[in-house]
């Protein structure tokens, strides 16, 4: 099993979700985050005082899939979330040691 962590631009969320469910992803976790990478912050001014906005709002996706699906998930996210401008995000793939379905107690592949 693989865990895929991806950060994407917030407006891309719906498109990515639809694409993932169409390739067989059955579950997904979404968090609103702030972050910075190559897309640096910018300067704003409030009542005459300048300040740095160092973080940009992003959406984080966490999903666990069978290893056989992992590459397809990575490709799908990459294609749908890409705009070509800086700040498109990153994807990381991790190994998962164990998975459990709370309702039934099923484990590993049966839990996904």
């Amino acid at each position, binding site marked *: 099993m693989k865990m895929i962590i991806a950060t994407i631009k917030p407006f891309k969320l719906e498109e990515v979700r639809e694409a993932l469910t169409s390739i067989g992803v059955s579950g997904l976790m979404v968090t609103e985050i702030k972050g910075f990478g190559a897309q640096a912050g910018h300067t*704003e*001014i*409030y*009542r*005459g*005082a300048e*300040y740095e906005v160092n973080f940009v709002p992003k959406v984080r996706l966490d999903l666990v899939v069978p290893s056989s699906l992992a590459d397809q998930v990575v490709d799908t996210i990459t294609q749908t979330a890409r705009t070509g401008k800086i700040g498109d995000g990153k994807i990381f793939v991790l190994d998962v040691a164990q998975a459990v379905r709370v309702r039934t107690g099923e484990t590993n592949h049966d839990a996904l």
Partner: protein
Amino acid sequence: MRKSTLSLAAISALAAPGVALAQEAAAPAAVPTDSVFILNSLLFLIGGFLVFWMAAGFAMLEAGLVRSKNVTMQLTKNVALFSLAAIFYYLIGYNLMYPLGTWSIDGVLSGVWGPGVLEAVGITAEQADDYSYASTGSDFFFQLMFCATTASIVSGTLAERIKLWPFLIFTIVLTAVIYPLQASWKWGGGFLDEMGFLDFAGSTVVHSVGGWAALTGALILGPRLGKYKGDKTIPMPGSNLALATLGTFILWLGWFGFNGGSQLAMGSVGDVADVSRIFANTNAAAAGGAVAALLLTQLLFKKPDLTMVLNGALAGLVSITAEPLTPSLGMSTLIGAVGGVIVVFVVPMLDKMKIDDVVGAIPVHLVAGIWGTLAVVLTNPDASLITQLTGIVVVALFVVIASAVVWLILRAVTGIRVDEEDEINGLDMAELGMEAYPEFSPS
């Protein structure tokens, strides 16, 4: 102009009823009749509840400009200060402000002490306290709202770090003594009025008083933690600009009552035409202030700043408050526009001086209040620069000294500032145990 002066004019009009209407040189007050009494009272009642509505305006404006963790506290302060003003103006302030000629120190200190008393239930015209003027209840109601407005001004500046009860104790002293005493010198017929100082609806008497009390408090209280780091000013953006904007429009609406009602009469063609001018001029000044701030923030900061535009509109309103009757619409717009300019320059200036004014009440009420008081000479030939300046300075000295004494005593006895951890976690949880937006995680 107040009750004491109008009565004399009315009496002389009554003495020769047939002649009064034809006499050009007589007082412009209408011949006292039931209709005049009723219409004057109506002006006070309507004007009064419009000024009452400004309390909602202040509450929304301040709630919108403070951070989420301090919203409940700001709202609590606004409701509490208004209610305390109502009680203490009734108990002490009203008679302190309007001795109606009975002075203990002539022109300076009222000789009438104790709670205000309204006319009895179901009076006839003969039983009215002042048949040439208006019902005492309507006069009390109207004037009470002005006192409460003064108190509201202070709460915005001192937000996000002041303790609730010491602030409310200050409010009590402000509404029971400080405001009514200086107001008696002008509107109560005291020495400022006698020397010819002009302040139609209170650029000095209300707005600069609130402003001085706020400034004195801000200096003694100190800035918010983390607001100034070395030479840098750290912005602390407000939590809800929709509320701030709503609050500004509510204040704008209430101001028609604030300035319009201050004509103190609506029973004649001349008076109602004057009230009409006042409404229109008041609106023009607000618009001038807003547009000036809009243009200036675009030019200076490369982007308009909504919070400054809102402050600009209010500064425009304060600027016209000392004389909303005599200017033309164009002149009113310009007078208001200067108010807008004041805001855009004074807000950063205060930050440079490390004076932390959370909502901009000092530029809006104090500085624009001084400007408005001086601007009277531009359109009212009865005003003189020296007299206006004297009034400004006298009120300034009194309010600054009186406020400083109260703030310093409070600071020594109870402390006026919450402790560091409470300030960081927010006053809502620390002092009230109640969040304004409990479903959102704390910022």
